[in-house]
């Protein structure tokens, strides 16, 4: 495997221009969607089969009572331990040589298990292709020496593309700088490869707790309970089986033939 590539989204630099959102749509030929009124500046509201990158506009009350903008360009996290990839029964969801997670559109059969296995609600089903869709990390571009379209289009370097180890080192320095400037809650999300989901290959610098951005504090791999749940099912099978055995053996024993 080649050196792991990553995207580092530094939300402290985001100005909410949505160039990333547009670049993503254009490069990936994603269709238009009817906007939704939500009472905020944010549009679109959620990841869909036509929206792989979106800027979240969060209005956070300051102690003074005024609202502060928290802007965050959000994307598929390309988890090192990816729920969607583990859930895929056809092998269509795979890890590329660069560590990103992609969906092979030619083998996905549209079972939609990945949709319910993403801890971030990223993967979406496309009814016309009958397959699951999500950010490809611009798989075509990175294999041709180009960065993802969103990172390329970002005018403030809020979205940075590069080797993961280099980006993490840069991100850690940036957190220190921001803390020094008084952003007490500045923190990295998903940078730690010993942290949740083995680290995210699209990781973030946040200016508030993850929950403020509607991100889970500690997302978990959905498959983690399969063994326990299966053992409990076997226990149930033993109980039910014994019940049936009891019912059929009673009196039947006297019958002499078995």
């Amino acid at each position, binding site marked *: 495997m080649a050196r792991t590539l990553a995207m580092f989204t530094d939300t402290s630099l985001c100005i909410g221009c949505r160039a990333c959102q547009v670049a993503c749509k254009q490069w990936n030929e994603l269709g238009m969607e009817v906007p939704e009124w939500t009472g905020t500046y944010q549009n679109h509201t959620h990841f869909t089969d036509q929206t792989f990158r979106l800027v979240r506009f969060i209005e956070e009350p300051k102690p003074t009572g005024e609202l502060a903008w928290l802007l965050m360009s959000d994307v598929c996290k390309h988890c090192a331990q990816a729920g969607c990839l583990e859930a895929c*029964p056809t092998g269509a969801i795979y890890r590329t040589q660069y560590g990103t997670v992609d969906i092979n559109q030619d083998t996905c059969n549209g079972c939609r298990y990945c949709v319910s296995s993403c801890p971030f609600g990223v993967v979406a089903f496309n009814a016309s292709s009958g397959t699951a869709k999500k950010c490809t990390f611009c798989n075509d571009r990175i294999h041709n020496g180009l960065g993802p379209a969103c990172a390329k289009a970002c005018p403030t370097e809020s979205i940075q593309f590069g080797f993961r180890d280099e980006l993490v080192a840069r991100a850690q320095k940036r957190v220190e700088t921001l803390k020094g400037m008084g952003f007490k809650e500045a923190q990295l999300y998903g940078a730690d490869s010993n942290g949740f989901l083995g680290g995210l290959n699209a990781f973030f610098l946040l200016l508030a707790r993850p929950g403020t951005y509607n991100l889970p504090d500690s997302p978990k791999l959905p498959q983690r309970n399969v063994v326990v749940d299966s053992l409990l*099912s076997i226990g149930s099978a033993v109980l039910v089986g014994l019940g049936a055995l009891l019912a059929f053996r009673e009196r*039947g024993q006297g019958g002499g033939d078995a």
Partner: protein
Amino acid sequence: MLKIPDWEMTIVWYFFLGGIAGGAYFTAAIADNFGSARDRAVSKVGYLLSLPLTLACGILLIADLGTPLRFLNMLGAFKFWNPMSIGAWGLGVFGLFSLLSSVLSFSTSQQMVGLRRKLSLVGSIFGFFLAAYTGVLLSATTLPFWGDSRLMGALFLASGASTGMAAISLIMFLGGTAAGEGWGKVKKADRYSMIIELVLLAVFLGLLGSAARPLTSGQFAPLFWGGLVGVGLVIPLVLEFVGQRVKAVAALGAVLVLVGGFVLRYVVLMSVQA
């Protein structure tokens, strides 16, 4: 915001029929191996019921895919930790056992009967699997309630047993073979399964606590309490103890158990996706 997979009525039917198929098969196998000669009707009905249901299961699963023609891609990977992957394999293998047992259930030759009994013991493992894995499949998602349910597979298995046994007894009643000892035994086994299911359901809800809210309160609550707990479990159990001498009452109980099994799959799937 998490996304729902849009598994709707096709999957409700699949979960329901898969439970019956698995339950009917292992009931048949237990009757075949450990019952008396008079229980033969039970095992024959069970084997023969599991076959068309398994076929229907396969068709339902394929129909629900976004790209149905690619259903064989499921067999292009084998991930033992992934319920969807081993589910596709398990259903296929179970179908094979169901077919063999059904064919062999017509034979009276000692050799064939012996073979059928041995086969059915192995096939039962896949029957149990088919009844339970759909629950584990849901509990291995990130969605609230589904992902929080540690006993979903165990509960689905007990429901598969109770509905499989109810289906056998109902077919025997309708086919006029409810006279023998076998019918009484399958009813008794069904009672045990229902009691296990009721206890598991209580523990299931207890472990979930407030995470069970999609079921226990809100728009699906009347269906859950009335349709599953009331109509599907408590009333049939009462009917069993009150009216077990009257065959029509017992048959009505079996119908209610089947309704309850369907309601269980329906409320579990739809409450999270509503």
